[in-house]
């Protein structure tokens, strides 16, 4: 991951990730999700426009984030997935657990 930024839209937090998610990036991602949830914002949209790759530890972090947001009555939703990224989610059979949107706007509106 080259850069992770966040922005507040109403009661929704939009997290934008730039660069591939691999190896120890998952630790940082885990921490980020739990901080946001702790702050009382369990509705998170992950914007993955500039992200081509995720490995299984990164997927582990996404799933972890999904579980804990849902536990707090929120959700973790994804948007702007590119083909390579989407293929990995498909191959790892993880895609069905997430709500995925074509644009940030759609994702934010979906809550």
């Amino acid at each position, binding site marked *: 991951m080259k850069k992770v930024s966040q922005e507040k839209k109403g009661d929704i937090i939009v997290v934008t990730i730039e660069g591939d998610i691999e*190896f120890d990036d998952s630790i940082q991602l885990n921490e980020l999700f739990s901080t946001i949830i702790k702050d009382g914002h369990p509705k998170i949209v992950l914007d993955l426009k500039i992200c081509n790759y995720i490995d299984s530890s990164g997927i582990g972090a996404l799933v972890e984030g999904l579980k804990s947001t849902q536990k707090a009555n929120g959700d973790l939703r994804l948007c702007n997935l590119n083909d390579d990224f989407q293929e990995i989610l498909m191959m790892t059979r993880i895609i069905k657990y997430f709500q995925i949107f074509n644009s940030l706007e759609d994702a934010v509106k979906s809550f």
Partner: protein
Amino acid sequence: MLGSRIHRQDHIIHDIRQGIADPLDLRQLLLSLITSLSKVLHLENICFHLYSNDSEEFELKESIRLSKTPISIDRDSALVHYFESKRDLIVRDQIRKGLITLEKKPSSKKANIALLKHLNDDLEGLQAEIAIPIMVDNRVIGILATGNLHSGRKITPHDLGFIRQFVAEFTPMIQSAITFQELANKEKETNALYEVGKAISSLHDFKKIFDVIARNSSILLKAPKILVILYDDFDANFAIKKSFGFTDFQLDTIQKSVRFKECTQSLSNVLEGILIKSPSENKVYEETILLDLGINSVLSAPLFDENMTLVGELRAMRPVNQKAFAARDLGIAMNLANNIILAINNSSRHQKSEEDYIELNMTYTITKALRSEFALDRILHKICHIFTHDLNFRRVILYFYENNNTLIPAIASGWPDDLYKSLSLDINRTIEGKVLIEGRFLQVGPKQLEGFDPTASQLLGLHHFVVLPLLLVNKKPLGVLVVDLGDEPASADNFKPRLLTQIAHQAAVIIENARLYSESELLNDQLRKEQSRTAKELQMAHYIQQGLLSAKYPDHKEIQIYATNIPCRAVGGDFYNFIAFNDDMLGVVVGDVSGKGIPAALLMTMTNSIFKEFGKRFSSPEQILQHTNESLQSFLSRSPLFYVTAFYGMINFQTNMLKYGKAGHNPPILYQAKKDECLMLDAEGTYLGTFDDCGLIEKAIPIENGDKLVLYTDGITEVRNKKKQLFGKERLASFIKTNPTLPAEKLTKFLISEIERWGDNKEFTDDITLVIIDFKDLKPLKEITQYKIDEKIESSLKGIKKCVSGLLNKLEALEINKRVYNHIRLALSEALMNGMEHGNKGDASKSILVSGVITNRRIEVSVKDEGLGFDVSLLKMKENQVDINHRGRGITAINACMDEVRYNEAGTTLTLVKYLEP
């Protein structure tokens, strides 16, 4: 040359088809087929033997130029067994030659010689030089037997080919005609029974009645010998009252035989009659007498009076040269027995005293009135009319007995329709039911009603009434008649219980006859229409489907194809197809749609054409399957009843690569000649037509000369043997491995016979499809090594990052396509992380060995850690689990990304292979 010949054959067959005037007339059809065949081939004799359910034999139906009557054969003959396993014609000359060769060799098995001898005998019996099976759904329904060519010219393979095609073409037509004829016979039979009933009820002379009965019984039961035995009050014994087909001497012998009396008496406990198929199995009649008379099979229907006392017997016999009676014949005999009882009642009434004359006359008038009607509803109306007008009762209601133990009103007189129509009487809780169960008429008043459900009588306002059971002779319940007596109880003199019982009894028999007649009439009418339509439709469907399936094999010199489809009904749900994407790429698809018969056939036809469409547009099996899934979804509206399993393979003759995708289908088998191993082509993906995402992931595998691709449907692997064991894909694989050099066609035939043997030569219960592709002339391709990997890395995140980025740089330099690049990246980093975390347990002092090779054909990387190794089976199990744990995902990802994933025995080395196409 061959092509033109085939064309000419088609032409001839087309002409023959045109020449058939009425394809549903079996005799006409067979005769015109015989004439046509004799015109084309000039054979010495031609006969059709068709299986008859009556005689349980193949009976000679039509023939020409036959010198003597052929001997019939049955289902259990060697010839029929041969047909059922080989599904092909047999030439007697070859059997003779085979026999000579076998007999010369001392090593020959006796069983083999015996089999050939049996076959030879059967053929001789049929006077056949060539015998061709007429088969429907793996069952022999007839045999076409012919002699040699009239001219003395030898029979050529071309002649045999024509005969095969001829029989195959006309089998559906013959089948339709047979079914139609069976229906017609059935109708005739019902009519005849009805006529007998009618005739009997109009006659009053004992002698004449018995004459009619004996004669008609003989005709209907196809029995030349008939005995009507009745209890003689004068002699206090059973006596033969009428016989048919016996001499006086024979009758005398029978009457004087020791057990004559007991024979009939023994029927008193057998309501449904006795059927004896051979003298030895019988325990009732004296065997010696039967043998003396030359009797083989005996049929006895008991005659009971209203009180269920045995009063006589209708006995039919067939001699040795005739086939034994069947259960169906017994049914006919029982109906005849009903009619005899009716006749006896009628005539005995005539013999009664003068005082009964009026009553008698009334019964006679009533019977006459009833029998003048054919239709059931008219008869019911008339019954009501008789009670209300002729007998002056106020009201009457007739209930029919239904199988769910209820009585449902059929007709009534004196009540408005909507009052009684909705009634339904439980026979166990109502007085009407009690009467039916006990079989005796009952006069009912408030006292009798105590303890019974009074709903019906209250609703109908009945206070005093008579309930009459409508029973047939064998106590088969038909219903009850309820006659209103009014507000006061009536004396027996007033309502004449005997007369009412008799009328009820007659009404029962006449209703039953009418019911039989109307049911069969209606059914036949419907069936006749439906039959001829569906037969034609089914025939067309069969042609269309076989046409679809027997489409020409693609013309590729590199491969040899053989494909078989055996539907278990006329039309089936399996399909295969060869779809060329371009000159160098050939798609092959095998699939199975849910269900069987016509619906499956429709779905199959649709699926096949969808595949054809997308198979021409896309080169990737994954995409083709995915698009087919979407199309099917839109057509099938996601009904769980309809789904399709399929395997799609794309053979690339430029790169010698097979790409494949699998949607819930059985894994095809690739026999790899170089390794002498069978590989199951497994790939992720569930069946089509139901889910948005089938989770399809395509894989690739290189192919080489000598390899064999075996595609099949579960009809093959799910054949069970006597011990209920499945044939299974492992047995299929080992069968292929033991016969690797057999060419596709021979292997197919051998395999089918093997599977038939496994299934104990029974009919297949599912469609069977088998496509075998031999790779025999692929162009040689060179594998050039471009890069070798051999690294020892530190077992840490740092070491792994360095190794992965190093390899990725190399891939980029080699301009490996982006998707493959991503796959390698994911699989390799997952493998390394696994090694670090699980193998080396995070111990950074340990290391990981990475070795491998990148060629123009493949990328192969092995990862070896210094751990104790893991249990490989455990890992395999984990793949299938739907757990959300991310390490589990790692394994899933590796399997999904790579074409091949191998572990060594110890579980310390993981080898990943991805095949490349330039």
